[in-house]
């Protein structure tokens, strides 16, 4: 490795809100953010639950992916102090904004004779979500506040972020999130017709990367990763390779997913969603995942470049790895073979093949039967002498599964664990599972002093990624 890779800025947004404080209040406190979503009619599906910011029926419009990416990108480059015009790569992990596609087909269907809607699991729409709750005693009560209150919370967070030196959108060469959002087109002459067509293009992942880069005013290569739940982790790994090999000095890596019906329906059809309204990673009672809103951006920079311009490194990325299971199109290898290989690569690159310096692992931990046991065995294979003594947690028990954004949001969470000296718990943990036999930091945060941490992700097709971070 010829160049050290540092992190000099980040922006993050989940169902808890925007910024590090929202993560501390939710993820690090072990508070699940699941509630019946009102973004669409959940009646046809087995569960109404998701970790979606409950800011009203127009939430998907308000949370349009391009705007959320712009917000997080602005926060990240603002924290890093990168001026507009910087030559920086923009690497994005995203599947595109499906809401416009759904809207298109809904509009087309509206032009045709309509068919009666199938309700294979009973009509259990949002209006009767409370009854669904009551019928399932294990389901938690929604912890998230109601729409108006929550929207107010977003506003408060934005103002607070802008007023804190070195954090948020107010620090970068007088650029604000609103200005970047303005630079990212939100509509155009022609009214609804123009805007509908424009939003259709947001379904093209590479288009979102172009919008983000243009909005941030960054000059440099752009590349969009679409490989499902490792997409943004793959973007970070790609940036690390580009920087460490001296090809580029700076990269903004981002990822985003916002809960919408299209993906929700697909996961429901695959029977992947939790049956009890909670995500319980590594717990005997786990029954599946739930989807969650997640968007984040990080600024990665060569240490030399950061030093030259006086930027403060928040953390260093000292190792990375990626490997494939070669096992199944949708299930992980039962022994976590690819995950172990990716982790070993990352640890070797970090100069710590045994994981001796690791103080925390942020696991993929989806809360599915298949993943969590395989991941446990993979971690044991990666560092057999150390696995039982390293705290491991999955933060999906609070945020839900963020799909393409999981890698970058969990990268930020892992970095905060290092800098804050607090390990986020595995929320929703009830009873130990004999096949999941590591220290999962159940339900309560833990004070710790880790110097290095590993964050892991896995995806459809058997893709696995691993990143090792080190605090300054």
């Amino acid at each position, binding site marked *: 490795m010829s160049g050290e890779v540092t992190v000099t800025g980040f922006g993050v947004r989940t169902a808890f809100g925007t910024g590090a404080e929202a993560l501390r209040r939710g993820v690090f406190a072990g508070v699940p953010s699941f509630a019946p979503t009102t973004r669409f009619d959940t009646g046809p599906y087995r569960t109404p639950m998701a970790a979606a910011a409950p800011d009203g029926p127009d939430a998907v419009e308000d949370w349009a992916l391009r705007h959320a990416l712009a917000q997080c990108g602005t926060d990240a480059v603002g924290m890093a102090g990168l001026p507009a015009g910087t030559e920086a790569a923009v690497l994005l992990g995203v599947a595109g904004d499906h809401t416009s596609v759904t809207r298109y087909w809904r509009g087309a269907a509206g032009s045709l004779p309509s068919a009666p809607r199938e309700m294979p699991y009973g009509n259990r729409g949002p209006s009767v979500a409370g009854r669904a709750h009551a019928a399932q005693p294990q389901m938690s009560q929604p912890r998230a506040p109601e729409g108006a209150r929550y929207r107010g919370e977003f506003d408060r967070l934005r103002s607070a972020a802008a007023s804190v030196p070195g954090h948020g959108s107010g620090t970068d060469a007088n650029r604000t999130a609103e200005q970047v959002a303005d630079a990212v087109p939100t509509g155009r002459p022609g009214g609804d017709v123009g805007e509908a067509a*424009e939003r259709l293009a947001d379904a093209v992942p590479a288009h979102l990367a172009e919008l983000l880069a243009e909005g941030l005013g960054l000059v440099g290569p752009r590349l969009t990763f679409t490989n499902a739940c490792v997409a943004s982790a793959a973007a970070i790994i790609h940036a690390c390779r580009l920087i460490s090999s001296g090809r580029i000095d700076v990269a903004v890596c981002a990822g985003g997913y916002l809960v919408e019906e299209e993906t929700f329906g697909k996961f429901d059809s695959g029977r992947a969603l939790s049956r009890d309204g909670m995500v319980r990673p590594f717990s005997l009672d786990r029954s599946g995942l739930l989807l969650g809103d997640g968007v984040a951006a990080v600024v990665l920079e060569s240490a030399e470049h950061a030093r030259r311009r006086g930027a403060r490194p928040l953390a260093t990325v000292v190792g990375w790895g990626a490997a494939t299971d*070669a096992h199944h199109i*949708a299930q992980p290898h039962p022994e976590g073979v690819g995950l172990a290989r990716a982790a070993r690569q990352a640890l070797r690159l970090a100069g710590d093949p045994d994981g001796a310096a690791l103080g925390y692992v942020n696991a993929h931990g989806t809360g599915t039967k298949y993943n969590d046991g395989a991941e446990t065995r993979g971690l044991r294979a990666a560092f057999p002498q150390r696995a039982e003594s390293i705290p491991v947690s999955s933060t999906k028990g609070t945020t839900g599964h963020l799909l393409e954004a999981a890698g970058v949001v969990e990268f930020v969470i892992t970095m905060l664990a290092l800098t804050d000296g607090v390990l986020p718990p595995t929320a929703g943990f009830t009873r130990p599972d004999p096949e999941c036999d590591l220290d999962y930091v159940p339900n309560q945060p833990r004070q710790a002093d880790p110097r290095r941490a590993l964050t892991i992700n896995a995806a459809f097709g058997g*893709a696995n990624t691993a990143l090792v971070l080190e605090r300054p």
Partner: protein
Amino acid sequence: MTTTENTEKTEKSEKAEKAEKTVLRSALGVLATATATHGTGRDDDIPLPRLPGFVESAFSPLAYEVSRQCLTERPGDGSRTAVALAGLMGDTTTADLASRRMVSGRVHNPLLFMQATANSVLGHTSREFGITGQMVSLSTLDDPVTELLAMADLLLEDPELDRVLVLGVELGGDERGDAAVPPAEVPQPSSGDAPRGRLAAVYRELAAGSGRPVPVLPARAGLAAAMLLGRPDTGAPVTVRSAETTYDTGHDARDAAVAWHHGSIQGLFELAAAHRRLLRDGGSHLLVTEPQARRGPTAFVLTTDTEAPTQAHIAGSETETHAHQ
């Protein structure tokens, strides 16, 4: 702006331009290439190969077919092989089919869930050929040939990798995927012959102001192309390397009209065709990509020689540019 600032900016721009144009740090060995088309009307169209678990769409069967051809022609160590797949927006046939089912009130088909991401067919390929290196799927607006070669160049610096399979897939419209009656709020072309529907609207939006065409691939059509790449010392008879700048070609294609639509994989097809010709006839071939939004064209030299091509080589070689000047 001061003179010094001007100079600095110019130097920076030149540096950036040169860095962007020299895509490959090292030469790459072209171990195998493959192309496959379905439903395009070409003479060499193939029926879709049956791929268990993948239904309705040409995306995954074509991706698998070109991968299979390359990996069968040049078997190797799967544990030292990586894969990168590129396309504009993935499997649009599956995406639209799933959307239409959903809005018409029908439940999702679990098979559509399985094949919803390109990762799935890559996972299938990796299982068939024991590939355990990294697999990546990308969305690219422009012809992915440049991004895929750059990706292979970067990945092959990893001492744990010897080979990178790169592939691109492009789908046409779909008579069941494009709305018979498009929503009123999405503008449609006035000409009755022009492509209609969701995908055509996306292409028109992406191409607004750039002069790029909207593709006219028939419904249900698909194309895929793949290259298996390694370092030149792996015994590849043909190598590909970056031309220093496009000026080496003796012409500047930056101002040339862009002939291909967004998401076209024509460059991969031309590279595969050049590879076949060089295997047969020897010599060198200059491939100039289409100009992209933020940079001019990039140029690659394919050669059967292991030595760097000289200007004489290039001058005497066959030159192909997407720009069709």
